[in-house]
């Protein structure tokens, strides 16, 4: 409910800024005009096709990145030797921007989904990985010793001690990765021209169709909001035991 208030505030500001003449409405149109443009968009099949294309790239890319990030992160985090051996490589690869890999992606996949996926996975993977690494390091030694004293095997320790401890970190990682994946899906479409929202934005941009451009940008933003809502709901269910969730139940 309160969240709607926040969004409403944003809408009001965007309406007021151009109307008051603080910014030229040719460059930042008021909310009403953006909404009108959005209204024109949502009735076209092309628009929904674009949303579907973007979401497909997003879902697949995110799923691959999260799965890989978690598996690699837990493996590296649980085995100190692996961690020591890989950390320099990870730090080397991490700051390489996905956008710099665009020629490589196009080389391999053209404008297919593969191109977008390559960029999405590459960028989102690190988000999850780093969070998992920090989460794994957060295991309470007493909890771990308890598990060891009862002779839990490696797998049981991962599953029952390490994983629940890392879970809040993983959630943050997934939320970060979710938006990064969306950002890169759109960027890849924007630059490479793979079908999707990004391509539509690019077209609107080069055509100087400003309200359309903002309407499409708003759609990406709203997708982000929706994704976060889902993530939060899921978190409330799975982390009910965690201080961050239980602390907020009114006492």
């Amino acid at each position, binding site marked *: 409910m309160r969240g709607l208030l926040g969004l409403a505030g944003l809408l009001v500001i965007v309406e007021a800024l151009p109307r008051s003449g603080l910014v030229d409405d040719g460059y930042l149109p008021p909310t009403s005009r953006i909404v009108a443009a959005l209204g024109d968009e949502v009735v076209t099949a092309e628009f929904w096709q674009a949303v579907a294309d973007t979401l497909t790239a997003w879902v697949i890319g995110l799923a691959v990145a999260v799965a890989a990030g978690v598996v690699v992160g837990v493996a590296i985090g649980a085995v100190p030797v692996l961690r020591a051996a890989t950390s320099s490589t990870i730090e080397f690869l991490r700051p390489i921007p996905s956008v710099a890999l665009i020629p490589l992606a196009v080389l391999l996949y053209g404008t297919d989904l593969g191109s977008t996926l390559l960029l999405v996975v590459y960028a989102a993977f690190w988000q999850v990985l780093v969070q998992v690494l920090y989460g794994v390091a957060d295991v*309470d030694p*007493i*909890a771990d*010793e*308890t598990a*060891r*004293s*009862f*002779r*839990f*095997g490696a797998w*049981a320790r991962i599953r*029952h*001690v390490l994983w*629940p401890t890392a*879970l809040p970190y993983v959630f943050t990682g997934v939320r970060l990765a979710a938006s990064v994946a969306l950002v890169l899906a759109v960027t890849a479409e924007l630059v490479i021209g793979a079908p999707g929202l990004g391509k539509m934005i690019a077209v609107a941009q080069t055509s100087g169709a400003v309200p359309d451009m903002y309407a499409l940008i708003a759609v990406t933003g709203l997708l982000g909001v929706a994704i976060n809502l889902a993530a939060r709901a899921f978190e409330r269910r799975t982390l009910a*035991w*965690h201080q961050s969730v*239980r602390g907020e139940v009114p006492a």
Partner: protein
Amino acid sequence: MLSVSGLRKVYQPHVEALRDLTFTVERGELVCLVGPSGCGKTTLLRCIAGLLEPTGGKVSLDGREVSGPPPGLAMVFQEYGRSLFPWMTVRDNVELPLKQKRLPRTRRSALVEESLTAVGLAGSESAYPWQLSGGMQQRVAIARAVAYEPSTLLMDEPFAAVDAQTRADLEDLVRSLWQRLGVTVLFITHDIDEAVYLGQRVLMLSSSPTVVQDEITVDLPAERDQLHTRADPRFTELRTHVYEQIQAAKLSTRTG
């Protein structure tokens, strides 16, 4: 048989927690360990459980040197709160080690129920540890160890947070478990009466740098109960002896 010989532990950079500990505990024996706060009792227990690598000397259980947690061992940690998994209910906390032992489901539920009832927590199975009081949490940790039916049981001040009456009940629980299953028990406590009431022997540690200061054999009858045993004049004698030894341990370090 548990044997500790020449055990030394130095924490980095230079806290010498244990200097030189040597003693043995027979299979099926119940030995209590007392000593001043900070003398290294917890450190000792961790070394025995194979959780901590000693700086010198060695620990062996049934002839094999301990390098990791030996099978059939259960431990009640002094930090009971942190040793319970907050993401699991009480039942799951108690049941998890049994699952690791691959016990069948029905056996598991029976053991869980039994042990929780024994510590007076029947009815709290589906609460989370952080919804319980300190004493209740400690009892969950005890129930977990009891349900495990260990062959070696290490307990680190396991009754520190429970009231007198519950404490007496739990003492009797440990003794009956010990008698019934023939488990080797090493029991750390601050309560001298408790040490004498429970143990067959009481080991007294000096304050840091720690050695075994003294030990007594508790020559009370094997059948003990809260009322009569504690009223036994021999009981009073023994506890006075222990008290004096500890006093002496403290004084010796205080003066030099």
